[in-house]
């Protein structure tokens, strides 16, 4: 009896529990939460290096009235949509391939990871060289096979720059998606496959009617997570095009950064950041409600 109460005391020292969390919590409050509120406050000012005055909703009114900003919002979502879609499709195919029982698959799995591990900024220098219109390998293959008549700067034209930045973003994001899908596929109970095999289901049928439904929760989770990451993607576009040519790759994050630290117009930048925060919060709310729905469904089964 004495032992039991003593143990309860050991596991339920609320004060100690909070004390242990406090340093991390305070740090995050200072570096993430406080700046978040400060961003919202600044969005109602004309803050710059010179100082700041309260200007009400002027920043927002100006921003929402400009067609340029509306175009940026639409562009951001188009960019994100294609990038996330490609990541999911390539990730799913990649995971299915790596999940097959082939010799060398352990090595293949390791080879998928490098883009995920290295600094994006360095990986993009490699892509900058690949996209080079005169000397890069992509333009080279194009010219040798006759698809291109001459040198072609992939990052110099509006449409090709847009597509090129998407491809590089997919390159950065695919490894993580692939590995999460692979982990999910390996978690599918083996007896499901054995039962289907005994019933004469082909490999394709087993993938379609067992693997896919079983990993759907993970697919949804990854779709939202990579939507959040893609939405926040900064370095890829910044290094490849800085949002150009003529704004063709300027997404909301790039625009925010340019206004904020390119022109030192903190107020206007903050207004854009607030839009980012609102959209991210919507994503997160959607994500969490979806997650709890899935959990409930799994629990019911």
């Amino acid at each position, binding site marked *: 009896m004495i032992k039991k109460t003593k143990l309860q005391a050991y596991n339920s020292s609320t004060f100690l529990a909070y004390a242990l969390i406090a340093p*991390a919590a305070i740090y995050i409050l200072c570096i993430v939460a406080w700046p978040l509120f400060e961003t919202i406050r600044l969005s109602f000012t004309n803050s710059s290096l010179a100082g700041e005055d309260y200007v009400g909703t002027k920043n927002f009114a100006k921003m929402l009235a400009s067609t340029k900003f509306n175009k940026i919002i639409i562009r951001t979502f188009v960019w994100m949509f294609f990038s996330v879609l490609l990541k999911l499709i390539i990730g799913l195919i990649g995971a299915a391939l790596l999940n097959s029982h082939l010799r060398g698959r352990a090595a293949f799995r390791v080879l998928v990871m490098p883009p995920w591990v290295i600094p994006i900024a360095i990986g993009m220098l490699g892509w900058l060289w690949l996209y080079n219109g005169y000397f890069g390998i992509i333009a080279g293959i194009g010219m040798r096979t006759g698809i291109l008549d001459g040198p072609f700067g992939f990052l110099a034209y509006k449409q090709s720059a847009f597509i090129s930045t998407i491809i590089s973003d997919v390159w950065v994001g695919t490894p993580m998606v692939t590995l999460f899908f692979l982990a999910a596929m390996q978690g599918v109970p083996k007896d499901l496959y054995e039962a289907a095999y005994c019933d004469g289901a082909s490999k394709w049928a087993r993938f379609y009617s067992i693997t896919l439904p079983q990993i759907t929760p993970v697919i949804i989770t990854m779709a939202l997570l990579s939507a959040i990451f893609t939405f926040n993607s*900064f370095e890829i576009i910044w290094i490849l095009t800085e949002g150009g040519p003529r704004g063709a790759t300027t997404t909301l994050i790039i625009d925010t950064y340019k206004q904020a630290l390119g022109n030192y117009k903190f107020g206007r930048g903050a207004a854009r950041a607030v839009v980012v925060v609102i959209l991210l919060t919507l994503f997160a709310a959607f994500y969490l409600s979806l997650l709890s729905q899935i959990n409930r469904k799994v629990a019911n089964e």
Partner: protein
Amino acid sequence: MNKYTIFQKILLYLSIAVFLTFILLPFVEMFYASLRPLKHLFRSPYQFYSNDLSFWAYSEMWNTVPRLGRYIFNSFFLASCVAILTLLFVIPAAYSFARFNFPFKNGTLYLLLAVNMFSGPVLIIPLYKMLRALSLLNTYYAMIVPGVAFLIPTSIWLLKSYFQKIPIELEEAAFVDGASRLQILRHIIAPLSTPGLAVVGIYAFIGAYAQQFLYAISFNQKKEFMPLPAGLYEFIGYQTVKWNEMMAASLVGIAPVLLVFIFLQKYIVEGLTVGAVKN
């Protein structure tokens, strides 16, 4: 059940080859470019074959950018500081989440995940003003302080699951036998969680290494504090870009990180995916 016909095998290997080509092409091409003399790189159309490969760029790059060594050191120094600081904050917090029951525990854990949503660019303005007010701009601190905050949440989740794997009975038995909390921490928790600490530390190091660019270009203008991803831009000259040397320096900079990751990938990937897969 898992037997393939020859045709299926060939198809699978071909598909994997296409997939891996997409993933690895930039690295292969970076390496190939680093081996070729500059004037042979600048040939159009692209030459697939070159008979003049050498490691010359790997020695010349130190002369072109004399501070290259310093940049690489900065990168490792900054990432190490961030990783150590992250661990200091994360160890007690993760232990608390793993072992105690207290009000708002789950809420706090999910709130932590929400931090992951916000990236540096969104908060860059207040962070910039804050660092300026504290006169920390253009110092190492400017590139250490913000990074830690964004690595804490995932690190807590990772380490929490390692602590949870240590049987609580061990601690309870020791506690009942009269050991103090500190003694339990030193003699039971610390030795048993060393592998977990190593994995989380390396996760934080790699994460810190990866996120340096934004903080470097936003908060630092002093060349002597620049990390490698920002310093590599010095290979871009007024006349030409020394692509071969820039690629060589890039590869030298990422090689150690890649090697460490390859050796420990099993543990890191396992730790990161387990939460998502089992919810």
